[in-house]
């Protein structure tokens, strides 16, 4: 067998969410990634976020491209449909899927090779169109499946495992997403589940293009001295602008933080994001400010994490196209076909 299914067994005492699902209901197959891979931590955070949001697992469509990160949709939400498309083309496939059925939740999982190189264009255009999706890049700055080449997000001056120095400038996907008009932009670290889980939950609740860049160290090829995507380096240079909690439905907002340090953002779906500011001056509603803040800290070698920008009133591609609320994939001939009488008139107009 060339796949590893997870045993069906689950403990009857497992905690259940509002829909009666346990964590096991949000899991997938056993990961075949390297032990310690940052991507597996992201998988765990996706599972946790979906569990906490009480999402029906089968109402999620998980779509990816090609690469280590793109393998991960097999490892979560085993009862949902997955699509492992072609290298770098996840965004277009997801866009099409979203157009066909606006009622599902779309989770796009990609990597830095996938999104910052071959798929850079598709990444950009899906963001600028405002596709309602959660687009997660599992960013390790390296090509793991082909054993250690630099990706386009590798920082200039960083070293590969073989000691080669990268002379190309890095692409900062967060900066690009901000510039392209993403209405939810965040960066996190796979090793910071406390920050990442609510970010994913908030992104899922956001109507519009949500983008999360997750620094996810590659344990095999990019976790050494000289790498700027290693566990140690990210921990030492992480500068979080905020911590957040996501509150769904009628739950009261927790305000057990110091007065003046909590900002509540209500989203389209009714969920509320409680932002606990760490940087007192940071305003996550200021796109230009976020871009400047990001650039200033990048120049200092700092990796800014947290929710960097959110537009709670965002619209999505369906709004732009003014499509019907009914999913297009459910429309049948009687709703789509103008019929023979209209065709007769068309014929008459062509004589």
């Amino acid at each position, binding site marked *: 067998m060339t796949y590893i299914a997870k045993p069906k067994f689950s403990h009857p005492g497992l905690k259940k969410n509002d829909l009666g699902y346990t964590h096991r209901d949000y899991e997938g197959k056993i990961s075949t990634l390297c032990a310690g891979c940052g991507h597996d931590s992201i998988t765990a955070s996706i599972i946790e976020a979906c569990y906490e949001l009480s999402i029906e697992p*089968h109402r999620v469509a998980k779509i990816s491209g090609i690469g280590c990160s793109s393998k991960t949709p097999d490892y979560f939400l085993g*009862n949902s449909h997955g699509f492992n498309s072609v290298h770098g083309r996840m965004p*277009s*496939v997801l866009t099409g899927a979203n157009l*066909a059925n606006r009622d599902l939740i779309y989770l796009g999982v990609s990597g830095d090779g996938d999104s910052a190189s071959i798929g850079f264009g598709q990444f950009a255009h899906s963001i600028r169109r405002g596709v309602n999706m959660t687009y997660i890049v599992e960013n390790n700055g390296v090509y793991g499946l082909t054993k250690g080449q630099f990706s386009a997000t590798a920082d200039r001056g960083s070293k590969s495992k073989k000691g080669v120095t990268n002379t190309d400038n890095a692409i900062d996907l967060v900066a690009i997403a901000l510039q392209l008009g993403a209405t939810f932009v965040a960066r996190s670290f796979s090793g910071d589940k406390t920050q990442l889980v609510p970010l994913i939950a908030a992104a899922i609740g956001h109507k519009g293009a949500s983008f999360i860049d997750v620094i996810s160290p590659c344990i095999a090829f990019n976790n050494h001295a000289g790498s700027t995507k290693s566990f140690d380096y990210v921990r030492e240079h992480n500068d979080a602008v905020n911590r957040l909690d996501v509150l769904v439905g009628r739950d009261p907002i927790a305000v057990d933080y110091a007065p003046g340090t909590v900002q509540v953002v209500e989203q389209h779906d009714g969920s509320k994001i409680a932002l606990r500011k760490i940087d007192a001056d940071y305003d996550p509603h200021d796109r230009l400010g976020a871009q400047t803040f990001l650039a200033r800290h990048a120049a200092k070698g700092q990796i800014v994490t947290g929710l960097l920008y959110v537009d709670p009133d965002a619209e999505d591609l369906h709004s732009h196209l003014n499509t019907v609320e009914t999913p*297009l994939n*459910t*429309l049948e*001939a009687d709703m789509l076909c103008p019929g023979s009488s209209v065709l007769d008139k068309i014929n008459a107009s062509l*004589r």
Partner: protein
Amino acid sequence: MSDKKPISSVNDFVVRFANVNGSGSASANEMFARAILRHGVPVSPRNIFPSNIQGLPTWYEVRVTEAGHLGARGGVDMMVAMNPQTWDKDVAGIEPGGYLFYDSTKPMPSTKFRDDITVIGVPLTAITNSTYTDPRQRQLFKNIIYLGALSALLEMDPKLIEQLIGEQYKGKEKLLSSNVHALHLGRDWALQNLKCPIGLRVRKSDKVGDRIFIEGNSAAALGAVYGGATVCAWYPITPSSSVAEAFTAHCKKYRHDPETGKAKYAIVQGEDELASIGIVIGASWNGARAFTATSGPGISLMTEFIGLSYFAEIPAVIMNIQRAGPSTGMPTRTQQCDIIACAYASHGDTKHVLLFPEDPAEAFEFAAAAFDLAERIQTTIFLMLDLDIGMNHRLCRPLKWDDAKQYDRGKVMTAEMLEEGRDFGRYLDVDGDGIPYRTYPGTHPTKGSYFTRGTSRDRYARYSEEGSVYADNMQRLVRKFETAQDLVPRPLQANAERPTKYGVIYFGSTSPAMDEAIGLLEARGHQLDRLRIRAFPFHSSVASFLAEHDFVYVVEQNRDSQLRQLIVNENGIDPVRLVPIVHYDGTPITARYIAKAIGDHQDHLKVTPLRKAVS
């Protein structure tokens, strides 16, 4: 003084307009063609234009043909020479005894004319300059003025042209009256100053019947509307752009919810062809009917995704409006040159379904059917038009639709079926036809989900690199393709009046020229049975046809006889028995060309021992 008797012909001649691209002549020239139709006389017009926005030469040719021949004829009986750049070539192209119509405002030296043609000068620029002050008006109305002069020269009924102008400018009274005025400026000048009519004349007839006049791209787009396409993703490319533009126009008219005004469709202009086909595949995977329209270079870019569609078995419809390749080739010239590229698109062992409509009516029918086929077979369906059908108006039978028709959504397992305990394996061949069941995402909380991927997997969609599992899947795909043979449109055969051992195979836009060529060949004493192929995979009747004839000509518009290659490859036939008749200069193939090529070969056969006779 002409040394050749002027051509005299009623309702059977070719007029070619030579213009400068961007001069606004297209509307007047098309009106000329439509006006002849209103006389009840069939026409077959063709645009011949450069891949350029403005300034380069453009031609519009109208074949007036009471006999109803819809292919290009070749030769020009009357040249309306409005482009100084191409003057010499245009004058040289006139048939002996033909006519040259030109703007005589400035005198031309006699060396610029020919002795064997009739020269008709109308001072168009002088007339427009004395009537209009606005430069753009002068340019645009000059076209209507020459239309008016032609109506007098060809003895056309001006009321029918006025009627057309009235329809075109309905509700815009100012434009309507000024166009009618310009028409009569030209007409009156001709009647007062020229010998009208000339030898070429249009007489009222009744040969158009209830036929319609439509471009193939527009008809295909309408087919997509009737076929239930709800998602269109495209990227502009000549000559396919008008498919998506027409689909947009049709949808705006017929596809809005009457209560909310919201659209029952989604159209996205992708950032490139890769994204366009990706969107189509994503939408189709999720149960919507989706398509893209492109041309050869777009197919090249889409090839990776087409392979995914084949292997992962996702429906998709691609309308390929072919142009001359390879590479950028001749973007505004017609060919049928993507046959092999589409039939086997992508790496690995792949085969795709191709549909070959012959005219706009079939473009409509096949476009609508393509969505049923894509969902039934769960694969990519190529609608193979070309520029000659796509961007030219053709007379064709009226479009028809059966209101009782329901869409064939193919083998889709519903939540109820899953609840009943039906065994769902995404790639299980339950019915033995090679076509598995699929489920739409979100169907059932615990059953029916699967992972779609381009990597090898087993019958239950589980990733596998086992050789036997891979081979099992590939064999099922072969079975599926065999099933498709009986689902796609069958070839149409027409036999000669007398039994013959010679046949001819053709397809698509070659059809009208072939129909006419048969008559020319019969007149030369050659009898041929005909088979018009309408789809790939080939129906078994193609093999039968080949077996029944000693020699079969394969007529197509590409250099390498690509359909012939496909027939040889798929039927294992001796290539010697398939004689290629190819035409690939970018202009539409003509009946004269086909008749000469086949006729010459047939004559040669009469004097040369057959290969099998001497072996």
